Each structure stands twice: as structure tokens, then as C-alpha cells.
């Protein structure tokens, strides 16, 4: 006896849909272009904190000089809000120094200084009314409010 198909019309709509969905997935599919080293995935699973550079970790030496809580100001090459690079650094610094809170205005008694060169650091300290408290490098450290 000749085999007879008995799929309902509703099911045919479903199969057309399945075909369309698969077609769309492949139509929009783009092969993975990213390149990364498998060792990093291994470090990821091992939760190795040394495999990745912590953003704003340059503030590490200054951090050990700060009180464990409260607020400090952060002095960088430029006031925040002008250059996106330093705004981003401010947010990274908040993560790095947490639970110490950063006041982006130079208003707190203690400030963390993180500038590119000693000249810029001196200029910014004068502008904001701070003086060096402890220098951990030529252009970074902590400062106290003097005016």
C-alpha cells in the first residue's frame, strides 16, 4: 500500500515557521571574530586574580595610606567632566578604593593625587589648594587641604 501523509495544515505552518527561524539564525549569523588565549579561560575558572590587570591599580600604594572609611578627593591631570579618559579613571578609582568614597570635587580634607608628571601634580595641587602629605612617587601620593 502506498504510504499516505497525514500531517495537518496547522503543522505545515509550524514547519514553515521552524524553517524560517533556522534560516534567520543562519542569515544573521556571524562567526566569532574574537581572539583570546586559552590560558586566560583557564585562569578564569581558577579565579586567578593575577591574570587580569585591575583598573586603577596604580592607586595601590596611595590606598594603603588612606583611612579605611569616609571620603577623600581625587586629584588628576584635569578636573573631572572634561576628558572622558579621566572620568573613566574616576569610576575605576571608586571601585579600587571602595569602601572609601571619592568626592570628585577638591573639597575633602585628604586627597589622593594621581598625575602624569610631577609638574602637572604641583600645578594641580596649587589649583585645588592642597599640599603633599605623603608622596609614593614623583607624581602621586596623598595630600592635605590647606586652603
Amino acid at each position, binding site marked *: 500500500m502506498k*504510504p*499516505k*501523509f*497525514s*500531517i*495537518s495544515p*496547522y*503543522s505545515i*505552518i*509550524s*514547519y514553515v*515557521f*521552524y524553517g*524560517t*527561524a*533556522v534560516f*534567520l*539564525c543562519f*542569515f*544573521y*549569523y*556571524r562567526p*566569532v571574530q*574574537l*581572539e*583570546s*588565549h586559552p590560558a*586566560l*579561560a583557564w*585562569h*578564569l*575558572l*581558577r*579565579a*586567578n*586574580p*593575577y*591574570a*587580569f590587570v*585591575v*583598573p586603577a591599580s596604580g592607586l595601590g600604594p596611595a*590606598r*594603603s595610606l588612606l583611612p*579605611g*572609611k569616609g*571620603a577623600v578627593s581625587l586629584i588628576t591631570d584635569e578636573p*573631572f567632566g572634561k576628558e572622558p579618559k579621566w572620568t573613566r579613571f*574616576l*569610576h*575605576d578609582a*571608586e*571601585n579600587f578604593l*571602595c*569602601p*572609601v*568614597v*571619592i*568626592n*570628585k570635587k577638591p573639597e575633602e580634607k585628604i586627597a589622593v593625587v594621581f598625575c602624569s608628571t610631577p609638574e602637572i601634580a604641583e600645578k594641580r595641587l596649587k589649583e585645588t589648594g592642597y599640599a603633599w602629605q605623603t608622596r609614593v612617587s614623583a607624581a602621586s601620593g596623598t595630600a592635605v587641604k590647606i586652603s
Partner: protein
Amino acid sequence: MADPRFSRLGNGGQDLMNALMPFILPFLLGFSTLETLLRHTRIPGRMFLSAVLAIPAGLSLLSLMIFLAHCLHAPSAHSITWVLAAAGLTAAMVIFLKDLPVEYLSKARGASRSVPAPGFWHHDVEKWPDRLFVQALVAGSFLLLIFAAADFLDYYWKNATLNIWGGWDSRFMWHLKARFLYRDPAEWRGMFSPLVSWENQDYPLMLPGILSWGWLWMAQEAPAWPALVSLSFYISLTGLFFWYFTFYHSAGSGALSAFFLLTLPHLRFWAGAFYADLPFAFFCAAATVLLMAALRHKDAVLFILSGLFAGFAVWTKNEGLLFFAALTALALPLWLRQPGPQLKSAAAYFAAALIPLAAFFAVKIFLAGKTTYLFASKSPADYVRLFTDWDKIYFLGAAFLAFKRSAGWQGLWYLFAASLIFYPLMRTQKRRLPYGWLPLALVLMMEAGYGAAYLITPVEIHQHLTTSLTRLLLHSGILALLFIFETFSVPGKRNILPVEKEDAACSVS
């Protein structure tokens, strides 16, 4: 001497698979709780569902415990968290194990009333050659699923290692809040300080709590943890779709819906940014699916779970309040239509949502100094003016359409448009399951809510749209995908729910 506050940053963590260990306790907590609740229901594929929901449910419960611990006595919050977690796990395991021999090992398995899966290959044909044709299609869809899973994992680990700190919001807001919870609990209220520049003080703390849990377990701020949390929610979301369509429709539908999710570019991208939007989309989908199941089986326990996951959505993002309101507004008329046993279901739904909602409002009212614009006071005249700005409304409509045409949606919204046309036709089938329209109603209500939020936003509209609309569409997009497959899936060979006949048997009253 090293500052003890920061010694956790780099104290090793060299154990194999160290970053996966924090999932163990949430899985056990979530699985035993869900299995205990679900074992007397008639939901199909019960253990699979429990396994799929276990990690998100366990992580969410731990997030609430961490928040509670910080509220109770902040300096001892870590110790209190351990006590709460141990007590919660012990209680859940004792209750779960109490009936274990009867439920799972006994031949009779009398206590279990779970409806058996309607056949792995089930479909609407029985005879050769139709059966062979359909089985070939199902096998093909599983091969596609395997391909998509491998491709997704390849993408995910590469993206995670190259972008380990995540996108802007996760890096500068969610992770920062988590650090306040983890590093020095006594100072956790610093996250609500107006000095913190990218803070959004009144955002709920589901994700920070989950991140804090992992770091607490590992005793270090492992950068891998946020990436693995996001991955776990992606897998759970895919598993949820697979479970729902396999057990309520057909194996091919389950595999293809999971395949679609794993290849969806926007979802992959935002999962790799570790934002809260993926967990939020997961909770929305879970609450919706569980509400559909609850209405179909008329089972109070499923209403409890639906309310719980809707509450988790609220605890994840502010948008959760909109979702909860929409879901409740849809369920309310169905409850009111049949007072009596249904009131018990309504009570179960609200009781389960109560704890996450209480935590959400505690942050809004007692902890956050300032609230987002949605909760800022405006006069009625302001609202009338904003909601009758027709130019802006037209612009927003055009923007929604433009964003939905993005290649990152992989044609999802075109399929959604097609399903709007076909749903009335397809639902005339006898085997079509009831309440399949729920995801559609939620998509419309949520997008209307998001549109209203854009109308009153004080942020420049172009900037606001470009930074948020795709993510917001992700929430409704997942529900839209649910509706698409609900519309077009081949229905089961036999009814899982002869609903009317099973009413009495299904009720757990």
C-alpha cells in the same frame, strides 16, 4: 603590614575550578526548595524544571539573605550571611530528604503526581512515513542546538577574557555596589552616598548581592565571578525555554527555541557585558511561564513560584515593578472570575512576592537618598503635558521600530509580527494550550510602560534611547520569543492538560 581590608584581593584562589564552587550551595538550596514545592504538582518535566531554575533561585535567595544580614547588623553581616545560608540550606535539605525514599526510590512513587512527559519525540503524527519525517526534523533541531551551544561557549569565554570587567553599568555601578557589600560590611551604606558619581542610589540590589556572595565564598574578588553569573543565567534561560516547549509542545520546538536564544546576537552581547538585564529577562520569562502553568494546572504552588520569580524581577531592576504590575493586572481578572480556591492562589502569589518587594521598597524608602526620575514628584499638569507631546510620541514609535529592525534581533520582531497574525488562526486547534496570549499581553504592556518612561525622562532623549532601548527591548524580546514559539510550535500529541477534567485533581488546596 598589609591592609587586611584588601588582602582578599590576591590571596591565591589556585584551586581547580575555584570560580565554579560558589554555585554549589545556591544549586542545592534552589533545587531542594523547588523540588519540595513542586513534587506534589502535576507539572511535566518537574525535575528538569527544578534543575533549570535552581541556580538563579538559590542565588536570588542568597542575595536577599545578604541584604537582610546587612540591615540586621552590618559589622557582622558576613557571619550572619553564613548562618542564614546554612540554616536555609539545612531546612530545605531536611524537608527535601524527608520524603526522598517515598518520592524517588519507592517503586510505587505514590506521592508523585507529575504528569509524564508526552513522549520525547511526541508530535501530531503516528504513522510512517510522517513519523520518520518528523523524527528527522527533531534530530536535526538537536544537532543545531549542539552547534549553537558550542558556538556560544566559544564566543562567551573569548569575550569574557577580553572584557573581564564588563560594560559600563556593570563595571561602575553593579560591581561597585557589590564591593560595598563585600569589602567592609560596616561601611556598606557608602553605596548610597551622594558623592559616588555613577551610583543610581535607589537601584535594587539583586545583582550586587549575588556578586558579593561569590566573592564571600571564594574570599577574594575573583574577576571571573560576574562572568560566570551572567553565563549561568544565560544557560538557565535557555534551559527554561527548552523545558517549556519540550514538555508543553514538542521536543523539536524546545530545541529550536533554545537554538534561537543561543544565537541571538543582542542577548549574547549583553550577557557578555554582565548587566542586570539578562537576569531580569530570565526572571520575567520564568514568572510568566510559571503563571501560565499555574493557570493551566490551577495549582497554588505554581502561583507561589510565579509570585516569587516576579518578586525576584523587582529585586533585580526598577523595571521589575512595571513587570510585576503588568503580570498581576493580567492575573487579577482571572482570579476574580473564579473566587474561592483562586483567592488562595492569589494569596500565595502575593505572599511569595512579598519578601523581594519589601527589600525593594526598603532600599527606595529608607536607604536611598534620592530616587530615579520615575519616582520624582511631578504635578498632574506636568504629566498631562508630557503625555500629550505628540511629536515625541511619534518619534518614540519610530525609534522603537528602528531599533527592532536591528540585525542583532535576528528577525525576532518580524516573527513576532507574523505570530500576531497567526495566533488567532493557530489557537483554534483543539490541542492548543490555554493562556498562550499572556506573553503577548506582557510585551505590549511593558513596551507601553517603557514608552511612558521615555516620555517623562529628564535625560536627553537621543542619548537615553541609544544607551538603554536595546536592553529594554531585551526584556520584552524574550517574552516575544515565548509568544512566537507558543503560536507556531507543533502542539503535543496528546493533551498535557485535559484542563477541565483535571481541575479537581490538580488543585493542591
